[in-house]
């Protein structure tokens, strides 16, 4: 009676069918090398019966072992012509498997002890590692941020650029390629610095236009490391190749 009560354990507490099987073997104080297959199968199936519904996803594995147990029993019942020493006990495969699993279970328990001990120790590795350059907390800037910076720059340029020299024409395509090449080589481009170095308003305008196009095409990304800091343009990761 008392024993029966002890068995009021849910299937969920077991890691799997082998765990349940081992539990039953232990409880019944059965020698693992000489398992009475019939009685253990009955016990095992009783457990499965406790479940109102068998969820095949999860309990399918329990059924698999149940089938194996029944198969083993059937093999043992079959009459054999000769009973030699070498003849394998049909239980052997299962027993070997159980023994191996039992070892793993014991090793897990020992590793758990080590884990507990180790958890009390803190290493510098335990702290979050420093973010790499690509993971800076960046805020993507809006078109208005860009336009604002651009206008200030242009005003500056206007003042120093009184001479109006007609120069070369700037092609959008060439400029775009130039920008991408620059980014591939330098990882990023400082918005302010870049436009400071443009030769003329004309060139700056074309460059700015290109930049907007590239942002729109999601080839580059304009970001600000922190508020009020300079805007940087990065090549998007996926466009890098």
């Amino acid at each position, binding site marked *: 009676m008392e024993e029966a009560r002890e068995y009021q354990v849910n299937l969920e507490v077991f890691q799997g069918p082998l765990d349940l099987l081992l539990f039953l073997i*232990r409880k019944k104080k059965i020698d693992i090398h000489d398992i009475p297959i019939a009685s253990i199968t009955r016990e095992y199936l009783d457990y499965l019966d406790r479940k109102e519904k068998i969820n095949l996803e999860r309990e399918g594995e329990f059924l698999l072992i149940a089938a194996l147990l029944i198969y083993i029993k059937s093999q043992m019942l079959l009459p054999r012509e000769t009973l030699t020493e070498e003849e394998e006990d049909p239980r052997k495969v299962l027993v070997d498997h159980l023994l191996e699993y039992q070892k*793993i279970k014991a090793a*897990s328990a*020992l590793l758990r002890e080590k884990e507990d001990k180790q*958890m*009390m120790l*803190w290493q510098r590795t335990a702290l979050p590692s420093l973010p790499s350059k690509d993971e800076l907390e960046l805020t993507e800037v809006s078109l208005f941020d860009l336009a604002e910076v651009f206008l200030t720059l242009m005003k500056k340029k206007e003042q120093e650029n009184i001479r109006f020299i007609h120069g070369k024409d700037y092609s959008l395509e060439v400029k775009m390629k130039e920008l991408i090449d620059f980014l591939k080589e330098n990882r990023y481009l400082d918005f302010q610095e870049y436009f400071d170095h443009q030769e003329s308003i004309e060139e700056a305008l074309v460059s700015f236009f290109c930049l907007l196009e590239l942002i729109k095409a999601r080839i580059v990304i304009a970001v600000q490391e922190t508020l009020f800091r300079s805007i940087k343009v990065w090549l998007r990761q996926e466009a890098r190749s």
Partner: protein
Amino acid sequence: MSTRLKDVIESLIFVSLEPLTLEKIKNICSEFAEMEIKEAIQEIIENYASNQRGIQIIQAAGGYLFSTKSEHDQWVRRLLRMEQKNKLSRAALETLATVAYHQPMTLAEISALRGVDSTYTLKTLLQKKLVKITGRKKSPGRPLIYRTTDRFLTYFGLNSLSDLPSEEEISKILDEEKIFE
């Protein structure tokens, strides 16, 4: 001379976030003999262990690294605002033990040994970088093969795989029946 080497090694271990191996120390301190280096390391370890220091040097994954002592755990957790570190689930621990003892292993082999489909568990272990993929098995379907990582060793405070609980330890605990509730 030897005191200086000791200080150098101490600095090297200090700046290392991963366990610093003897091999690396030897490469860096190439003008010193291996014996000297080993002695210096031993001296540092003993210094930290004997002096009443808050930190110690531990050996893990074949290297040396600084670590706090267990008695200060709760204070560190206060600083980091951490209640308790998350432990591995039973399934994760079991899967990890399976891989550790039988590696290299495929997912199918792991699942077969545990008697439970281990796809999900293995995935979380991969994410935690406690196991890694090391190639493909030359068998039909060319399944991926898994091994434990150095981080696995560090996580459990093991110096190498040979530090895993031994057969004797395992049979001892099995006799005690402690693991069966």
